[in-house]
């Protein structure tokens, strides 16, 4: 295994009253893939930000290749051969791949020489690691998988020997993720050290040599991946036993509550995002829509819930049509029993600067029980919020706290509590567990199954295939705005993955 590429000794970091990293000591051997897992807020990103020079540790030392390192800015980290691929890509969209790669290391005010140097260097990297990408393509025209490759190339171009990847697979199809893992193994064979931050246990098992588990700012264990199990890691992450599989009985579908017929939607640029989609949603079933992000799922949800206009088609809710010309008022649809947990919790589902109690009535604020004439009934709103906080175990239990100060899982619970407690007939859910920790995921999944068992119709859109497969009674796969296939809950991941990638149904069957 050789020497440690990175050694962290007694790293401690606090933000105000939050203790993000407590006395963390960790050795990452050179030439290995090291996974770091933990729930959101466990301190993984903080630790990596310290390593990459975004933050300074309050206490503790960082050693790189056995020597004490002073990393005060990302440039210090780059100089030490540390590269980082961020969860949200740091690319200039209207630049070409080459321009992005030399950004910040141009070397000369005239670009010509550095471009040609970068071009030959890029060819070498391509050859060595199998990282093919057209150097003259404009970044915004590339699929996300390739954009990520550009990020990796950027780091390698800067001489990275140690590569940190922060949640790299969130935006990838299963096939793209597999490809990424192949690249990572190749990089390892070339002697690079890779640190992989993720909350997906499967990825840890698939690709890492060692794994460190973080919980509430502390490093609770470092294990050899080969000697541990998914169950053990989950338990270490959460601090208690977790049910990874959702337990649910067979579904008993009843009448059709939501019916979508030949629906087409265009976005503001006039590009067709939803293309002639039809399906039914029945009482007492969960229908999952699988697909890589950006294949029309968001537009479909927003159209059904009255936020976006349709070009053509009809949608009926409980037998009565929804006005799809844009006149459909989301609050009218709510009154008719359509609840919506939106994909974009931060901008749509919640107003982050609002108090928790203010968010717990968002969209239902015109209901008479929350109002005294033109005024808001502050007492009723607070009592209502306190009740939901108790029922959904929202922490901290403070209705007057700014919503931005809740963790992702608790923010999602605020949205779910609001939408589910209205006792809707149809629940439309987008990415219910995105950015949500394992403990809360279990809770949210249980609630969704409960809704189904109470005879509600649930439409679930998620980019997490595991989630779709474990919750849904039927699975529709979207690709390029169309429904390219329907499967039942027994569909394998590979089968769905092919459909998601747009491989023809017949080919997929072969």
């Amino acid at each position, binding site marked *: 295994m050789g020497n440690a590429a990175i050694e962290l000794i007694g790293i401690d970091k606090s*933000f105000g*009253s939050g203790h993000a990293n407590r006395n963390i000591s960790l050795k990452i051997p050179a030439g290995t893939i090291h996974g770091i897992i933990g729930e959101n807020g466990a301190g993984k990103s903080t630790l990596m930000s310290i390593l990459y020079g975004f933050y300074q540790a309050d206490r503790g030392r960082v050693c790189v290749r056995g020597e004490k390192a002073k990393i005060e800015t990302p440039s210090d980290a780059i100089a030490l051969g540390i590269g980082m691929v961020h969860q949200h890509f740091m690319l200039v969209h209207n630049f070409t791949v080459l321009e992005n790669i030399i950004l910040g290391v141009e070397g000369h005010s005239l670009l010509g020489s550095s471009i040609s140097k970068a071009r030959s260097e890029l060819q070498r990297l391509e050859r060595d690691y199998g990282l093919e990408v057209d150097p003259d393509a404009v970044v915004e025209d590339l699929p996300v998988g390739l954009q990520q490759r550009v990020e990796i190339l950027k780091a390698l171009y800067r001489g990275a020997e140690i590569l940190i990847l922060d949640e790299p697979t969130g935006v990838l199809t299963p096939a793209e993720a597999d490809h990424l893992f192949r690249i990572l193994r190749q990089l390892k064979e070339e002697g690079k050290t890779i640190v992989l931050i993720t909350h997906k246990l499967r990825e840890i098992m698939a690709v890492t040599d060692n794994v460190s588990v973080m919980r509430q700012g502390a490093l609770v264990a470092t294990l050899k991946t080969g000697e541990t199990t998914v169950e053990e890691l989950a338990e270490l992450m959460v601090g208690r036993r977790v049910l990874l599989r959702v337990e649910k009985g067979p579904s008993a579908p009843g009448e059709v509550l939501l019916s979508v017929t030949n629906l087409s939607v265009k976005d503001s640029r006039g590009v067709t995002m939803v293309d002639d989609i039809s399906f039914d949603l029945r009482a007492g079933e969960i229908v999952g829509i699988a697909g890589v992000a950006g294949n029309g799922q968001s537009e479909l949800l927003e159209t059904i819930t009255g936020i976006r206009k349709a070009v053509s088609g009809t949608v009926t809710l409980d037998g009565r049509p929804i006005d799809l010309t844009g006149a459909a008022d989301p609050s009218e649809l709510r009154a008719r029993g359509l609840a919506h947990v939106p994909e974009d919790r931060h901008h749509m*589902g919640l107003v982050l600067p609002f108090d928790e109690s203010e968010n717990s009535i968002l969209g239902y604020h015109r209901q008479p029980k929350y109002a005294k004439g033109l005024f808001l009934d502050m007492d009723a709103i607070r009592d209502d919020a306190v009740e939901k906080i108790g029922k959904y175990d929202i922490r901290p239990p403070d209705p007057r706290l700014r919503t931005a100060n809740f963790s992702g899982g608790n923010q999602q619970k605020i949205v779910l509590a609001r939408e589910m407690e209205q006792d809707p007939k149809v629940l439309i859910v987008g990415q219910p567990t995105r950015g949500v920790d394992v403990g809360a995921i279990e809770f949210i999944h249980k609630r969704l199954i409960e809704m189904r068992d109470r005879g509600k119709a649930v439409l679930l859109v998620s980019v997490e295939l595991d989630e779709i497969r474990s919750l849904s009674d039927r699975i529709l796969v979207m690709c390029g705005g169309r429904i390219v296939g329907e499967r039942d809950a027994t569909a394998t991941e590979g089968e769905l993955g092919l459909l998601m990638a747009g491989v023809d149904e017949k080919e997929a069957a072969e």
Partner: protein
Amino acid sequence: MSAPYAKLPAWADYGLIPLINVTVAFIVAGLVVLLIGENPFRAAVILVDGALGRGQAIAYTLYYATSFIFTGLAVAVAFHCSLFNIGGEGQAYVGGLGVGLVCLAFDSVLPWWLTFPLAIIGAAAFGAAWAFIPAYLQARRGSHIVITTIMFNFIAASLMVYLLVNVLKPAASQAPQTRTFLEGGRLPKLNFLLDAVGLSVRSSPFNLSFLLALLAAFLVWVLIWRTRLGYEIRMRGHSPKAARYAGVSETRIIIITMLISGALAGMMALNPVMGDQNRLQIDFVTGAGFVGIAVALMGRSHPAGIVPASILFGILYQGGAELAFEMPGISRDMIVIIQGLVILFAGALENLFRPSLQALFAGIRPAPVGIEAKQGERV
């Protein structure tokens, strides 16, 4: 991930930070005074004494503050909807037309206490109407409200000059102004309030509209934080997507917010037109619409901050006039510079001192969180 800094307690957020910002603005202004060869400490003493030293001075200070409260509230209401209404100047000017028309029509037949409510309606309606066009263009056509409202300031100025010169001027007069209002078009002075606390005021423009301004401040607080409309305004202000999701029509809420904002700006005209000059004359707004922006920024769009910020600017206006009189080296422009510095530090550089202050507070109150996690054995 945790927020990088501790949240500040409300008193520091709304009290300490503006105080630091204003102090720094004054220090920099002092340096400017030093640079032109005057003694900044003497200038400060003259300014404060000129604004607060005597009953007379206080009355003038409060008279100016009255105008700023109205325009500050106007800007603040729009801010809550994430709209930058830079057209308070024009809305106040046109609001004056509403006041003037009501007073000219009724001053000979009604007592002031009947003209006053009509004039309030006139001021609010004309101010709101002037804000409506930019609001409609923003809501329906996406024309940026900063551009349209500032253009409407110029249109308002031209319109009022035309009306005063060609329509409202009495036939024999040379001055571009209306006739002087009779008793029914004049607001009572509030000098007696200051007299009652032992401050003698000979004559001042301090009038009843000050109390109306305080009432407006309270009503704006109720509107923003206690009504459904205010909830929807703030929702749209923080997150247009969330508002759409919640079924709040963006068009409707933008127009309503701008109508309220314009009405508040228009009501500013009551103070000079009905309370002091008792006639409608050219350029009576004298920049109060723009000061309103500084006041709203400094008061952090909260009525409880806007009232003291308005009084501070009242002090600057009144004290500045005295200063220009006492120290010939310092012209009125100096006051404009101080205002500019306050805007710079309270608005544009509002977050200049926040991070260090947050770090300071975080250091003072470290609170333990969570449980101790056990260290893994198999490391």
